[in-house]
């Protein structure tokens, strides 16, 4: 373990703290926070500051310090967390996050952002300093000298008499230290021995103990303090350093440090010499300042302090209090290297393949279904599935942080476009594979920005349409039939179908006279090349079209679609696999090869008749499916598997649907089986193959390619984009 590793740990913890911070501030914004929430928010910033200090991240420390100070006022009930204040805090949290990232990456944070933010926070702090908390008496009110919480105008410094010493005395470096502990010193578990040890290490010291106050046993109280010391020390350069050993106990003893040559002890303790040392008098003199100090300090406590958050009883593990618990009370967790988890997942994948192979071989060996070996294998398969599910669950994480990140995106987007937006999230605890979460961040961000930028109207327009000025975006995540469904719903103006249609025509994406259903028009936005310069605003940037988003989602094995109601808003729906590692697929034969078609893309399978197939010119064919014609794609030809062409009536048609609802018919030789396969990526070792998503190892040990249906149906060689559109011809 070295400082670099610890620094890594610190930045990981910063992420956690920032998440806590955001989460707590959002609760405060929604008015759902209690004192525990506020405390947690304070602690998050305090923690970041503390660690940052240890690594000398100056900018981060100075910003965090101001932020923390403001939060301290709030948790001490000295400043109200009004809506305005919370908004400022949220912005400050964003800035803090940026500063943390800059510190971690070793880059410079944008001063033009964080300096003004810091100044803004300062302003809140200073303007608050003028107003005392109502009702609670603060220390400043009691003591005449009031400069702020730290100043009593009184310091419990030992009454030292150095002010009367001449310069010569100090230069000599010889001092007398008189030290007599009070019982409080022992109560605090301090030990004079160690103090004397430290002191004697600072020069040439002679120590004398005054035992004259020690009573006989019958009058002896073990908790009292009867001893005093006189230390003569030579060779001390800096007189102030002599106070250091007494740093912890200055208010718990009588301490007098004088330079030897002067010999004159003037000042408050003048009349006190060693012989006259009478404890009662001394204690009076010395304890009275301590008393005042205690009194004042006690009053300073009248502001709310964080209460003990758990009762210590016979069962210390029990945490019993009504207020909200932070996530730290959650079930026990351990940290594991992601690499180890990945290895485990890989191994389990191999286990699944192996088990499938074993089953296959047993079947080939001709054992009957009911034999004990087969039954054993069934159990093995069950077990393997369970292990696989459990292992997949390890990498699964709640989407909470992802959803929370979006609230910042909404804030910034709203600021940039001048719209008033509120983000509501649902399903924070929904769990998704960690890698999927990471790859969702960008697409989600784009969609949210789009929703704010294009979906929601300006406040004035909204109120004219009798909507609230504040637009709402609902972001939800849920498990549905073995997949994760994420929805982004806005209550904006919905898709402007006329505009979309005309843009599509303009860009040559559809024919001018193409007849499309409303839903088909909506889904045009996913086409490559749809977004244009006219779409560029402050925030959407260039070329980040919905087609990029769609491809990202598809790359995750997911689907995306949109539905819209003019005047009421739009809803994007994404469905994603629970994990990237396995896939349910249909195993088919194509041109003598075995391929896997992802089940999620399959609508149905058909056995076509030659009469259903119609040729549409060079290499384009359609097949009649009920009332419509669907483009027919001969997979073996598409993938250039060889000369043999499949006769439609000899083969099977698999009707697939891409995410926009576009249907295509894939012609394959035959269907073998339907099963779950472990996905093995080819990209790392080989590269990307158009039409192929990945590969897998089947039960018989053969490698099978997994089709990328979306790519397959797009990649029509030699034809223009137009022919990719469903040609909804009426069957004559």
């Amino acid at each position, binding site marked *: 373990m070295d400082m670099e590793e610890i620094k890594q740990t610190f930045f990981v913890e910063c992420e956690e703290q920032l998440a806590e911070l955001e989460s707590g501030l959002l609760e405060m914004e929604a008015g759902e926070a209690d004192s525990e929430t506020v405390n947690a928010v304070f602690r998050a910033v305090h923690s970041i500051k503390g660690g940052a200090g240890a690594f000398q991240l100056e900018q981060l420390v100075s910003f965090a310090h101001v932020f923390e100070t403001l939060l301290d006022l709030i948790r001490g009930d000295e400043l109200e967390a009004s809506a305005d204040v919370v908004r400022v805090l949220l912005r400050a949290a964003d800035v803090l996050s940026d500063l943390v990232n800059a510190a971690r990456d070793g880059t410079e944070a944008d001063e033009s952002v964080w300096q003004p933010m810091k100044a803004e926070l300062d302003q809140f702090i200073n303007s608050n300093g003028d107003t005392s908390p109502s009702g609670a008496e603060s220390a400043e009110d009691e003591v005449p000298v009031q400069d702020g919480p730290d100043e009593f105008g009184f310091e419990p410094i030992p009454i030292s008499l150095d002010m009367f010493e001449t310069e010569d005395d100090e230069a000599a470096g010889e001092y007398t230290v008189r030290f007599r502990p009070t019982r409080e010193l022992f109560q605090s578990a301090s030990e004079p021995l160690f103090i004397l040890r430290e002191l004697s290490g600072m020069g040439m010291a002679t120590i004398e103990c005054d035992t004259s106050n020690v009573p006989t*046993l019958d009058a002896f109280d073990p908790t009292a303090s009867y001893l005093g010391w006189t230390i003569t020390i030579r060779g001390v350069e800096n007189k102030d350093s002599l106070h250091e050993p007494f740093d912890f106990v200055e208010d718990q003893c009588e301490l007098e440090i004088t330079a030897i040559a002067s010999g004159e002890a003037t000042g408050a303790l003048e009349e006190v010499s060693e012989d006259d040392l009478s404890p009662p008098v001394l204690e009076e003199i010395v304890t009275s300042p301590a008393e005042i100090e205690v009194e004042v300090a006690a009053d300073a406590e009248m502001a709310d302090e964080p209460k003990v958050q758990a009762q210590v009883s016979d069962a210390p593990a029990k945490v019993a209090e009504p207020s909200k618990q932070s996530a730290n009370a959650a079930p026990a967790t351990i940290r594991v290297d992601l690499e180890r988890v990945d290895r485990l997942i890989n191994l389990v994948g191999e286990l699944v393949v192996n088990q499938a192979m074993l089953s296959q071989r047993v079947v080939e060996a001709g054992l009957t279904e009911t034999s004990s070996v087969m039954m054993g294998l069934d159990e093995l398969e069950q077990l393997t599935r369970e292990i696989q599910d459990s292992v997949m669950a390890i990498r699964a994480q709640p989407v909470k942080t992802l959803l929370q990140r979006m609230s910042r995106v909404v804030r910034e987007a709203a600021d940039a476009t001048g719209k008033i937006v509120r983000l509501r999230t649902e399903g924070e605890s929904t769990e998704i594979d960690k890698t999927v979460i990471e790859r969702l961040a960008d697409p989600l961000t784009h969609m949210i920005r789009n929703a704010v930028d294009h979906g929601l109207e300006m406040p004035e327009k909204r109120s004219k349409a009798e909507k609230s000025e504040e637009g709402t975006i609902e972001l939800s995540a849920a498990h549905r039939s073995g997949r994760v469904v994420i929805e982004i719903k806005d209550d904006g103006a919905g898709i402007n179908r006329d505009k979309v249609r005309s843009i599509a025509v303009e860009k040559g994406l559809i024919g001018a006279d193409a007849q499309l259903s409303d839903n088909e028009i909506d889904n045009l936005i996913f086409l490559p090349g749809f977004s244009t310069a006219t779409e560029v605003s402050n925030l959407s940037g260039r070329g980040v079209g919905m087609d990029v988003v769609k491809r990202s989602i598809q790359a995750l094995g997911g689907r995306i679609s949109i539905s819209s109601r003019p005047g009421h808003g739009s809803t994007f729906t994404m469905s994603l696999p629970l994990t990237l590692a396995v896939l349910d697929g249909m195993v088919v034969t194509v041109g003598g090869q075995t391929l896997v078609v992802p089940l999620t893309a399959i609508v149905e399978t058909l056995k076509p008749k030659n009469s259903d197939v119609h040729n549409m010119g060079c290499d384009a064919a359609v097949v009649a499916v009920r009332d419509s014609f669907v483009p027919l794609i001969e997979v073996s030809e598409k993938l250039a598997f060889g000369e043999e062409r499949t006769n439609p009536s000899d083969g099977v048609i698999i009707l697939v649907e891409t995410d926009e609802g576009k249907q295509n018919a894939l012609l394959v030789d035959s269907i073998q089986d339907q099963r779950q396969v472990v996905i093995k990526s080819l990209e790392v070792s080989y590269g990307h193959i158009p039409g192929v998503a990945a590969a897998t190892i089947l039960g018989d040990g053969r490698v099978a390619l997994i089709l990328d249906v979306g790519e397959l149906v797009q990649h029509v060689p030699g034809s223009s984009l137009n022919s990719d559109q469903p040609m909804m011809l009426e069957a004559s």
Partner: protein
Amino acid sequence: MTESTMAAEVIKLPEVLDLNALEALHTELLSKRGVHLELDASAVSGLGAQGLQLLLSASETWRLDQKSFTVSGAGDEFVSAVSMMGVDADVLCLDGEEHE
């Protein structure tokens, strides 16, 4: 004159002379007043100011009672603590030296 012919009673001091131990020791010492006493310090790992003042009190009390009081088996840490705290070893009769 001390009755040096009487055998001393021995109290074995515990390893740690924290406040809890000292309170117990104080009580025990009170119960042993009037006999020659030897404190066996061989197990003691360290001595602090509170321990020292108790020993000093005991030593003085025994002197006034005219009974012998010694501390035996004091280890290095014990001895150097006494010295660091500015007390003479013979005040406590370390190394079993009797005093008059």
